């Protein structure tokens, strides 16, 4: 009989995929891994002739086709591990802690009403980014994603028409070969609902366990590198930050009142306050584009006293608003569309040595030349300076060949202003 074989005191008992327990090829009982109100351990519970038998511990794993394999360890199998048995089926996650493997019929591939439940805690492997379950009672089983690190995706989960939170999706599939030799690939959409968060220098996904308020939130950690980008937060699978994995929706805006950055992470808009801790730079190639990149190191201080250090690298472009104000817009592409939003950074025009620059304030120091970019032009910077002088009422330094003395009296709002005489610019 096809199934998982148990050597019970010299007697072979086979746990068939149909839920029956066979002894000498005759169905004599039933088995299951999940019982209402029963213990949540990785043991098969079964009966023979209606008589409950001692539970059998199982070691689970997934083969390269993501099919569930089960082995009865030596201690429960007469001193030697059982032969591995591969169940045909598909993978589901019932909450953020367990995996449910739904069995299918070997002849038709149709889903049966039988499941195998793997109890434990879920996490993502820091190197492979495969889904790993740390099995209750010891051991691990690893589900391989469909397309490497791209199997992970940060999506939106609707709560109400007015609110959303985050959805972490892991895309895998199980390939089964049916009795007639055909293959059946069954998608496993493993979804975790919750919100993105930062714990120390680690990106985590805090998933709420569905339907059980007594269970704590499950935190899924990600060991790769992350940095703030215009579209939100980019997560890289490797330590070097070169292997892009997925992007988490978000926005970053300069808060001029508090002189720091407001960081909104995920669709749940978890808010952080980031302070610039160094390495500020503005990268702009002088030329035909208005694009620039604002970079800095950020430190986020959490209420528990811990800190998150991360890099910020925001692609942006300056733009003239309807009121002829220069605004810096975060800019990124999504599905071929260019999305923008106002970074709300402050700044001022500076015309010095024949060059017009815009100095940006995006840390808590006064802007200076280090934090400025030159306005783009294709033909003639002086023309632009003159044009801006008209538009923005920028007063230029004039060049006088004359020598002068001057006495100046200034009334502001009707009051004569007092002040020390100042030398005139030559």
């Amino acid at each position, binding site marked *: 009989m096809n199934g998982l074989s148990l050597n019970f005191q010299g007697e072979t008992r086979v746990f068939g995929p149909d839920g029956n327990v066979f002894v000498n090829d005759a169905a004599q009982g039933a088995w299951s891994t999940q019982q209402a109100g029963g213990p949540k351990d990785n043991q098969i519970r079964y009966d023979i002739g209606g008589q409950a038998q001692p539970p059998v511990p199982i070691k689970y794993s997934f083969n390269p086709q993501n099919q569930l394999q089960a082995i009865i360890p030596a201690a429960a199998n007469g001193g030697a591990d059982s032969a591995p048995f591969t169940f045909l089926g598909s993978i589901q996650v019932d909450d953020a802690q367990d995996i449910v493997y739904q069995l299918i019929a070997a002849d038709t591939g149709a889903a049966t009403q039988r499941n195998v439940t793997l109890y434990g805690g879920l996490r993502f492997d820091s190197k492979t980014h495969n889904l790993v379950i740390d099995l209750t009672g010891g051991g691990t089983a690893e589900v391989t994603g469909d397309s490497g690190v791209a199997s992970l995706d940060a999506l939106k989960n609707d709560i109400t028409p007015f609110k959303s939170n985050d959805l972490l999706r892991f895309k895998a599939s199980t390939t089964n070969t049916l009795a007639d030799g055909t293959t059946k690939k069954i998608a496993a*959409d493993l979804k975790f609902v919750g919100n993105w968060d930062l714990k120390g220098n680690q990106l985590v996904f805090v998933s709420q366990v569905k339907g059980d308020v007594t269970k704590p939130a499950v935190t899924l950690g990600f060991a790769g590198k992350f940095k703030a980008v215009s579209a939100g937060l980019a997560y890289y699978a490797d330590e070097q930050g070169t292997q892009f994995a997925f992007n988490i929706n978000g926005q970053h805006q300069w808060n001029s009142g508090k002189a720091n950055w407001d960081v909104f992470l995920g669709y749940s808009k978890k808010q952080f306050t980031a302070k610039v801790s160094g390495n500020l730079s503005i990268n702009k190639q002088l030329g035909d584009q208005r694009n620039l990149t604002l970079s800095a190191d950020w430190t986020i201080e959490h209420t528990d006293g811990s800190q998150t250090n991360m890099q910020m690298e925001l692609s942006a472009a300056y733009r003239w608003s309807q009121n002829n104000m220069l605004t810096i817009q975060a800019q990124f592409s999504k599905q071929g569309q260019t999305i923008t939003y106002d970074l709300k950074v402050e700044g001022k025009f500076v015309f010095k*040595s*024949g060059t017009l620059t815009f100095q940006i304030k995006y840390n808590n120091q006064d802007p200076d030349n280090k934090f400025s970019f030159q306005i*783009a032009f*294709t033909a003639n910077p002086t023309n632009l300076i003159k044009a801006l002088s008209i*538009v923005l009422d920028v007063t230029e330094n004039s060049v006088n060949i004359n020598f002068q003395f*001057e006495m*100046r009296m200034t009334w502001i709002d009707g009051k004569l202003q007092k002040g020390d005489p100042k030398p005139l610019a030559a």
Partner: protein
Amino acid sequence: MNSQMVSRRLPFYLCLLCCVLISAVAVQGQTVSATLRLQATAVNVNGVLVWQVNMQFAPTDVVINANTFDSSLTTPCPQISVALRNRILKELAVMAQEEKDATQTPIHFYIDSFAPAYSLPDTLSDRSFFSRLDRQLSRSVNRDPSLSLTATPPAGFGKPTRVGETLTARNQTQWRFELNPMGFAVVGYQVWLQTKNGAANSDNGGTTVPVMKTMGDIADDLGIKSLTAAERTVAINLLYAPEDLQKPDGSLTDAELVRVLEGAAYRTFLVVRDAKMQPCQFRDADVDDLIKTNTQTLFNAYGADLNIGSMLTDDNQEIFGVSGLQLVQSIKISVTPEADPQGNVTRTDRDDEIEELLNKKYKPRLIAQPGEIVTNDILDKDTRQLYLVRSVSEFPKYSFADGVLTYEVTRRREIVNLTVTGAGSYSPEYALNGSLAVTGDNLLGHSESLSLSLTGGNSFQKGQFSFSIPRETPKERRKIPIIFAGFNLSGNYSYDSDQALGNPILTRYTNRESRISSSVSFEYDSFSQRDYVEQAEGLSEKRKRLHHLVTTDVGFDLLNNQLKSTGLIPVAPLDGRVVYPSLRVNYLASYDLRRAGMRGGIGEIDFLFNAEGEKGFRGIGGDFSYKRYELSGGAQMFFGIAAPTDMFLRYQRGAGTSSNGTPLFRIFRLGGPLNVRGLEEGEFVGNSYAYDRSEFGVGLLPLVRTIRNIFPRGKKTSNPNPNEEPTPTNIGGLDLANTFVKIFYDRGRVFETKALGEILNPAHGVKGYGIGAELRGIAFIANKRANLTIGYGRSPNSLLHRRGAVITGLSLDF
């Protein structure tokens, strides 16, 4: 009240309950089967043979089995299978575009692994065709059930056997796939609006008042006739709290509040409609994002209180929700003084006065009024209206908190200047001079300037008084953009001991002149401020390229002259008063041909036309009756090889004529920077004159670059060093990009004839030629570019400067 509220809420909850019950049946639905005609070719990637997908798909390549749709979708939407096919084709097109843009490495898509027959290497796994299609569609699936896209290969599918092998040749192009459409199929859509109080009460179990309507009901209430029958069926749910009925000066009735909410709902519906939201489609994350962004903009005033989202119900209705709206309780205009140059903002009593004045005068004129929900268009109009107030210096901001809408305006500081200036200068004509000037700005509070200056030297003395009102700078462009371009009133006295008039070397004149002059100017400019910036930047391809600028000066002058001969051969003194009104019209047309990234070619073509006339008469003590006319026209073209403004060619021709009786000091003077360079101004005089000027200039920057290319620093390499220092554009304060070295050739002739054909012809007269540097755009006077020319010119016809002379000239563009 409470029982009434509860009874009002009952239908709302019954509706929600219905949704839940329906959902229990509908949520699972069933998977839909389809086939895809997939063409792929075997390629070798890093030593592995893989199937590369041909990303060109026709509508006939995707066939959806309409019979596999759940009836909950096909009943309201019989064409839902067509919608699904179109949606899949759209996502495939996005993938094809990504492949075309080549932003990824590798750029192509490959058939996914189908173990054990075919395996795609891990390095290519993120370019798996079906996984990517699934990922793109799943962006729009924000609830259960998952899309679960599963592809089944045709029988016999496996590894390719050789490079270039195709699925077509193997007869394996027909792929079956399944997906569950229930998580993103939209059979209809609704709009839900909640007030902030309504949302808070709903969360806390407080009293709320739900109102269910259709867009048809709302259109009838608001008198809108333009909705289609389908649009009228869109369901609208409104929710408010009893607290929303309270106003500082009384209370609203439920009907009044509902009417206000209906207005906001209608505006939200328009946003949804503008995003091309349709029933019987599949949810699109991009459309949702667009609606969310535009709704956020619409109700931007509510800031952090605003919650906007969308949700697909289990019965496949997409709900677009707006929460956090508030009715305006009161409106305030707050005034902040402009910062001083040190950045300090010091509030004074004057700010309080202005604030009170603004609130009193402008608050009743605002469109936003208490008891309304404010939208961005209302706020835009109000802030624009406040910006136009003279004392407001910056575009006003607004904020909304606790029902109070505040417009925050920055007040321009009222600055009055009085300046006394002493100066000394040197010029070739007048040698050493001293001057004293008193200047006042804004003394009368109208931005006017007042100045009195005295200048004196050994051969020249001058006193001048002037009063001017500057060119207006409208805060907003008018429909007909004609503006007042300034008023000047001036009086001056001058004595010049060596005035040249004609070329008699033995006769010199002293000229004592007093003058009262007034002029008023108007201007038409086809360019807006934005057009100027865009033209100067040269980045936007859609910028306005043709620029017209017309200026008109109307003047009235009263001139007293006393010319005495001091030469060896005395002539009778010339005294008299000239009174003349004048009119001057300038027209400039400029066409900008520059394109972003363009290296050479023609960059700009300009045409200029000037016409000037004056009529002397004998009234007000005038001694001379005469007419005097002058015309000039010309063109210039900027072009280049490396950049479109490296060089220019310029040609200008002018002529003038005056009637008999024109006083000597108003006849035409040939020579000087305005016509024939190399001659001193006035070396030749006549009742008529004509001139033409030709120039060719080369920019200093391309010259310097060319020299650096010919004589590079260090060894020449075939690979240019990216870190090599670029050619500086500014040397010692000289802007190389705007400095041109030019050669010129001028011709001129004076006549005593009035024959038009002869007047227009400057040939056979005097000529001048030379070389100079033109510093373009050293200043902007009004919005015209001022250019300074310094050079050396020589005229073989000059008796005063036989070896040539230094020439200087300031000209407005061009």
